[in-house]
């Protein structure tokens, strides 16, 4: 028996020595690399990137986004720059954050994540605990040429200064989706929505936070029940703000929600399923173009339309970033730069592909691109850009999000 224990411990010792040895060497090699990438000229970055395979970790919950990346972006990027883009589908960006946290805790320097799609609280957390690579935005030609980097809705991500550690990829806005054969006059405010729910018991619900869209719905309600968003932009006062009107509102509508509010759909996908089955009459999306493309795919009924509340509709920018232990930073920079080209952004805006707002400043585009932008047909169910812009309100600072989600569970779900 003693012999076995000796053998085993011997093995483990040898193993661990070999492993740590490798780690140290790699770390040194890595440091030499990073230094020059954040200062190098674009030509040498392009040279370095050639032939690299870049792992792009993004939320895989929508087929349109996946196909846009796989079928449109990846082949073109490969052809133009020699970078291979490999999409890795994830269920939640938090999974990647967790993975990176684990890799950070064991000093793993050769990570498998090269690009993450990120914003809001995930960005704040990643930035605070040092999971991001560095300030690379000013290195990208397309950022310098087409992005208004100082616009407040681009420089601040849920109130957090991006400091060039992430690059804006697109803009989204919160809309409600309904079936116009069942609802002729959609509500215009949270109060009217409450009345509508009362008259149509069982026909409305929202996904349970921490689902991204469900959480956004609760934030919408917060703005409107507590008198506007302005008070929240200054997160210094966080402790003294009273959320009770929000909980009161949500508890008041609860008994008339789907299934009497006994349970909530755990994901937006389930709410969409309930909507396409006709079990509920409304769904929602943080994506103005979603309804049109779901009609096109035959998932939602032809008579589906969208509406926004006149008291304001949340809007946010979402970003791309590079983790601290990415192995192919040059390739990641080249891929991100391509995703921000007018060509890629205009294609993404087309409802046949994705149908969401671009992160570029239209006034900086060439005349030809601007013409294309004006010709885009956004689809039957998508609201015109000026109507969306009219009711746009900014996102809440990230540190509120968790408090709202926990509060929702405590004061709404448990009651």
């Amino acid at each position, binding site marked *: 028996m003693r*012999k*076995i224990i000796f*053998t*085993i411990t011997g*093995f*483990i010792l040898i*193993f661990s020595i070999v492993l740590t040895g490798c780690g140290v060497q790699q770390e040194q090699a890595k440091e030499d690399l990073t230094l020059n990438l954040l200062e190098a000229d674009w030509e040498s970055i392009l040279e370095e990137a050639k032939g690299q395979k870049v792992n792009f970790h993004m939320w895989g919950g929508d087929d349109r986004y996946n196909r846009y990346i796989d079928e449109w972006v990846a082949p073109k990027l490969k052809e133009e720059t020699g970078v291979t883009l490999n999409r890795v589908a994830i269920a*939640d960006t*938090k999974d990647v*954050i*967790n993975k990176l*946290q684990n890799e*950070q*805790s*064991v000093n793993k320097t050769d990570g498998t994540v090269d690009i993450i799609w990120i914003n809001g*609280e995930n960005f704040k*957390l990643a930035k605070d605990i040092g999971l991001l690579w560095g300030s690379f935005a000013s290195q990208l030609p397309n950022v310098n040429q087409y992005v208004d980097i100082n616009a407040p809705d681009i420089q601040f991500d849920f109130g957090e200064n991006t400091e060039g550690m992430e690059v804006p990829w697109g803009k989204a806005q919160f809309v409600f989706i309904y079936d116009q054969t069942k609802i002729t006059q959609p509500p215009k405010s949270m109060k009217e929505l409450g009345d509508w729910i009362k008259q149509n018991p*069982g026909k409305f619900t929202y996904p*349970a936070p*921490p689902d991204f869209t469900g959480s956004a719905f609760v934030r919408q309600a917060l703005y409107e029940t507590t008198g506007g968003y302005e008070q929240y932009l200054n997160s210094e006062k966080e402790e003294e703000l009273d959320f009770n009107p929000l909980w009161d509102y949500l508890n008041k509508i609860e008994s008339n929600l789907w*299934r009497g509010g*006994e*349970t*909530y759909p*755990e994901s937006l996908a389930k709410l969409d*399923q*309930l909507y396409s*089955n*006709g*079990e509920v009459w409304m769904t929602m999306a943080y994506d103005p173009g979603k309804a049109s493309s779901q009609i096109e795919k035959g998932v939602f009924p032809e008579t589906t339309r969208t509406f926004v509340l006149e008291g304001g509709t949340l809007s946010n920018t979402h970003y791309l970033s590079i983790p601290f232990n990415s192995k192919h930073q040059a390739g990641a920079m080249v891929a991100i730069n391509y995703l921000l080209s007018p060509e890629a952004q205009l294609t993404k805006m087309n409802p046949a592909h994705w149908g969401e707002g671009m992160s570029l400043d239209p006034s900086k585009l060439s005349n030809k691109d601007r013409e294309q932008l004006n010709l885009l047909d956004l689809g039957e169910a998508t609201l015109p850009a000026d109507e969306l812009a009219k009711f746009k309100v900014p996102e809440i600072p990230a540190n509120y999000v*968790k408090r709202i989600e926990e509060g929702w*569970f405590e004061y709404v*779900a*448990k009651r």
Partner: protein
Amino acid sequence: MWQKGNPYLYVLPAVLFMIIFFFGGIIQGVLQSLGVSILHDTQFTFKAYQKLAQSMDFWQSLILTFKVSFISTLLSAMLGMMFAFILFIISLKSYTNKSYSYFYRIFQYPLVIPHLAAGYLFLLLLMQSGWISRISYHLGWIEEIHQFPVLVNDSFGWGIILTYTWKEAPFITLMVYPVLLRIHRSWYEVARLYGSNTSNFIKDIAVPLVLPAWLSSIFIVFAFTFSAFEIPYLLGVTYPRLLPVYSFDLFMDGGWEERSQSLALNIILAVITAVLGMLSYKMSKRWLPSERRGWE
């Protein structure tokens, strides 16, 4: 040295694998649940366990998880055993292998479907706007889909129980049935000669023989239903959550403190399962003499 065939050397790779990945993982989990980590200032503390013990949510989830696992396991055990004996009786009565191997195949199908897919399948079947509900509506059994009973995402957990039973009963059948097959046909004839009928034969000879396999498979099913995540996530309710979902939510909250709690919860799950495993092992040793050996 190799020719001598030191058996310890041959099992070394497997043992090493187990030690590094299984025990390593468990030790890592225990350490994190006690707030010890390479990454943060380490403080050895039982705070995570204290917090859990003080939270009503935890106790409610624990009771609910127990209830759901217990009922699922009980139903699976009963049905699984029943199916195995039905197959066995068919094979006793028939002199060709054809007819019952066909039945046997039916029980193998649920095993190849992953739990996640099974959960989603039951959701689509049993939702109020699901397939069964719509068919009933078209046949005029219900006047509108909301009259269809709530079977998934219900507070009792029927949806979870049904799905687990459908998945695990065939598993138990497949654990028990091969043991039955090893009973020689001649035994049955001898028993008949001494005047026993089929039911006597099953009660006095077959059941004692399959008990060990049955009990261990029941334990496996209980341990699984007690700690699996996907089906409760799809078919459970927002509150109260089953423990695995509760643990997942805590872990995903991102904060360090919640992570410790999440791992503490997992350690509690593992300890409860281990204790039950010990108990069932002890019980089976006491009750079942070694009569199941030496009869091939």
